[in-house]
């Protein structure tokens, strides 16, 4: 069985992101990066499936320059078997990334593609569903539980939707997007990282993923949120009720 997991390199989740002078870019000089936490959930799930199934290969894929290799290695340290980096630079839009990944999927022919449901930097949440559309595969999003059938021909997924919990079945191959409560990822400690450095990390050149077309969505600039006027503290429930009345809220 082959599981393919896509991952994105994102800024450290607690980092304070500043806008650079001019406002058209971000000041990422002193920022440390990590594997997108949602993609980590996907990696962890793939590893759990591998452990349950016994024999499976977990391949992690990322689209980007050399700078995302530490993140791929981190995933290998968690236990993935192989990594693939599609060497593309510049500001790519979601569709381009999706097309690149779809090309890798066609080369690798995995049984299941796992991704985090969104990336914590741009929070677009588009790539995995786009991949599913490009491939014509069934998809499930906001997965909080995944169970494979005994014969591994389909997966039963519980999805956290607006109304509650929805259960669907997907015939493999399929694309599943991980949500927060899917699992708790294991820690990638240094012994794992050292073993990881010996695992294969293949680099695909742009020609190998075909024509992705031009980038048609780009970020033109950033700005900070407007400062909110400071609120007032009240000392008692009575005061609170009065304040709410004054604002005509009750």
């Amino acid at each position: 069985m082959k599981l393919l997991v896509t991952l994105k390199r994102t800024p450290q989740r607690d980092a304070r992101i500043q806008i650079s002078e001019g406002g058209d870019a971000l000041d990422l000089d002193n920022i440390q990066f990590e594997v997108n936490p949602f993609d980590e959930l996907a990696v962890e799930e793939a590893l759990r499936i591998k452990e349950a199934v016994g024999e499976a290969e977990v391949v992690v894929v990322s689209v980007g320059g050399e700078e995302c290799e530490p993140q791929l290695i981190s995933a290998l340290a968690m236990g993935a078997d192989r990594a693939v980096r599609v060497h593309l630079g510049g500001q790519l839009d979601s569709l381009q990334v999706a097309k690149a990944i779809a090309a890798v999927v066609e080369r690798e022919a995995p049984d299941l593609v796992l991704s985090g449901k969104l990336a914590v930097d741009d929070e677009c949440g588009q790539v995995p569903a786009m991949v599913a559309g490009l491939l014509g595969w069934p998809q499930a999003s906001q997965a909080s539980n995944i169970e494979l059938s005994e014969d591994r021909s389909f997966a039963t997924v519980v999805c956290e939707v607006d109304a509650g919990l929805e259960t669907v079945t997907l015939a493999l191959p399929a694309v599943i997007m991980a949500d927060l409560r899917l699992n708790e990822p294991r820690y990638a400690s240094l012994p794992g990282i050292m073993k990881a450095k010996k695992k294969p990390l293949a680099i695909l050149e742009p020609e190998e993923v075909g024509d992705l077309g031009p980038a048609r969505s780009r970020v033109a600039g950033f700005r900070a949120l407007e400062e909110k006027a400071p609120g007032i503290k009240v000392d008692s429930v009575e005061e609170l009720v009065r304040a709410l009345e004054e604002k005509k809220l009750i």
Partner: protein
Amino acid sequence: MVELSTTLAAVVTREILWNVPPWARALMYLLFLAAAAVCILGVVRRVRAWSRGRESGASVSAGKAWGRLWRDAILQARIWRSGMAGLGHALVFWGFIVLFIGTCIVAVEDYGSWLLDREHLFFTDTFYLAVSFALELFGVFFLIGLVLALSRRKSRGRFRPLSRGVDLGVLWLFLVIGLSGFVTEGLRIAAAGGGLESHPFERWSFVGWWLATGLQAVDESLLATLHLGCWVGHMALSMAFIALVPYCKLRHIFFAPVHIALREDRKAGRYAGVSLEEVEETGRYGVSTPADFTRRQLMSFDACTECARCQTVCPATATGKPLSPMKVVLDIAGAGGADESLHGEEISPEVLWACTSCGACVEECPVYIDQLGAIVDLRRHLVAEGEIRGSAQAALRSVAAAGNPWGMPREDRADWAVGLGVPTIEEIDSPEILFWIGCAGSYDRRSRKVTEAMVRILQAAGVRFAILGKGECCTGDPARRMGDEFTYTELAGANIQTLSAASFERVLTTCPHCFNAIRNEYPDLGGDYEVIHHSEFIEELLSSGRLELEDGGSVRGTLHDPCYLARQNDVVEAPRSVLRSAGLEVVEPEQSGKDGFCCGAGGGRMWMEEDTGERINSERWRQLQETEPETVAVGCPFCMTMMTDARDAVESEVEVKDIAELVAERLPGSGS
């Protein structure tokens, strides 16, 4: 018909193996061979198991080993700490040793005289009397010790020992062997023909003599039969004991002294590091199977006497967690193959994560077992497997990425200092003190107040000090206690670079964890600095007159000793002296100083949920409240958090304040 060697009446001695017919002798030799074989087999098996461990560290010099043996084994020095339990063991131990020596003397006399074809060798006259008396005396000590041990099973004290089948069985076995020895002797003295008056020197064997006087009326041949029966029983039980030794807690008779003598020098507050190269080479990190322990560690686990004292002092065990240090040790000792994983249902992640690394177990163990070291080694394996989840994992990641366990921005580390006139190390040349703030003191709202109080104290005393500012990052203590040596080594390495590039006389810190790490553990990585805890430094300032405090009346209070300060670094008196100068009437709780009870935050537990049993901090709070304090003084940001939480949980009005805060309140002009 009883034989009496007429020559005996002339010599002061006794006939060895009197009344023991050849078949009984043969039985004795047979049983002895069997018992010895079984015993040796057991010992060899265990020693072989140790040999599957790793090589480790420098071996102990012969002189040091003998010295340790003399002190702790012969003199029972460490045992005496334990009051009545110590007395009991010492009596049993010395009793046993002397009785054993006595048996050896008798054996030598027996075989020696046979070999050299002499009537007697040396076991006569004064020597005989001296030995007989000594044996009698120590035999009595032996029995007293056993009775003490048995009666302690009924006590209500904190250290009430275990009363499992094996514990009672072993004591009763000894008791019966001891009593049967005296009874056999009594019977012999009574039965040896000619009446008691014919060998009055036997009074030196005063117990046997006393028994014999009571048996005067009994028919001699009956006495002889009884004597034989008793002798056979005593002999058989003794052989059974010999065979039993390696198969139960009694194995400590052999292994404890060996371990005590040859043990590695490990301190609870100073973990054995692991280098990257080592891990790369061996592909191994932490302990998964017994073979991953060092040989001496494996030996140490077999030294366990199953006294359960470590378990008694363990805060996790006391609050219903599945962790017991003794059980971990015994589980390892009793493990199957050298290559079978130790991790499983018994040594589960829950057990291993329950440890607060307080070191009470190590402090208490009478045979110097390093239970904490074993737990940490096992934890490291969990971390290597990625088996650290939830808030603990988040804290570990934050420490590595942001240099503090809360993931707060590095740029904000010195924000607390804004407006306080605190110079950084770049701004001041060779200050007397480098004030190491620590993560809590930099970022935690409550702990910042302690940092501020300390700054006021330093300024009031006119101390030339500086801080590292943003150049400071976590000492790595949380990472190390949680089992991630690599994050620890990285952080420590960075700090050592920063510290070594700076010049200052001493490092001052308000956090015992930082204190312990920089002082005891950084030297292993090349960072040797003089480090002082703020309680010690304030004491210095007060006694040298550099700091004076206003009088403000006295408040009744108590001190919760930080584990990493008192137990692991022997700083017990300084905080008390400082608190008294600050007007706190220090009332001691039952457990204080090196016997203090952990607040529950150590070992990385600060960042873990506590779902099982009672909360450790609540239990400690309860203990402290018995002193009826108005204020609970702490000397550590973790203890501060824990005690404050425990206080809030019961909605008490008792104050929780750091030593620095209490002192700062008494600074001249602070108008407390």
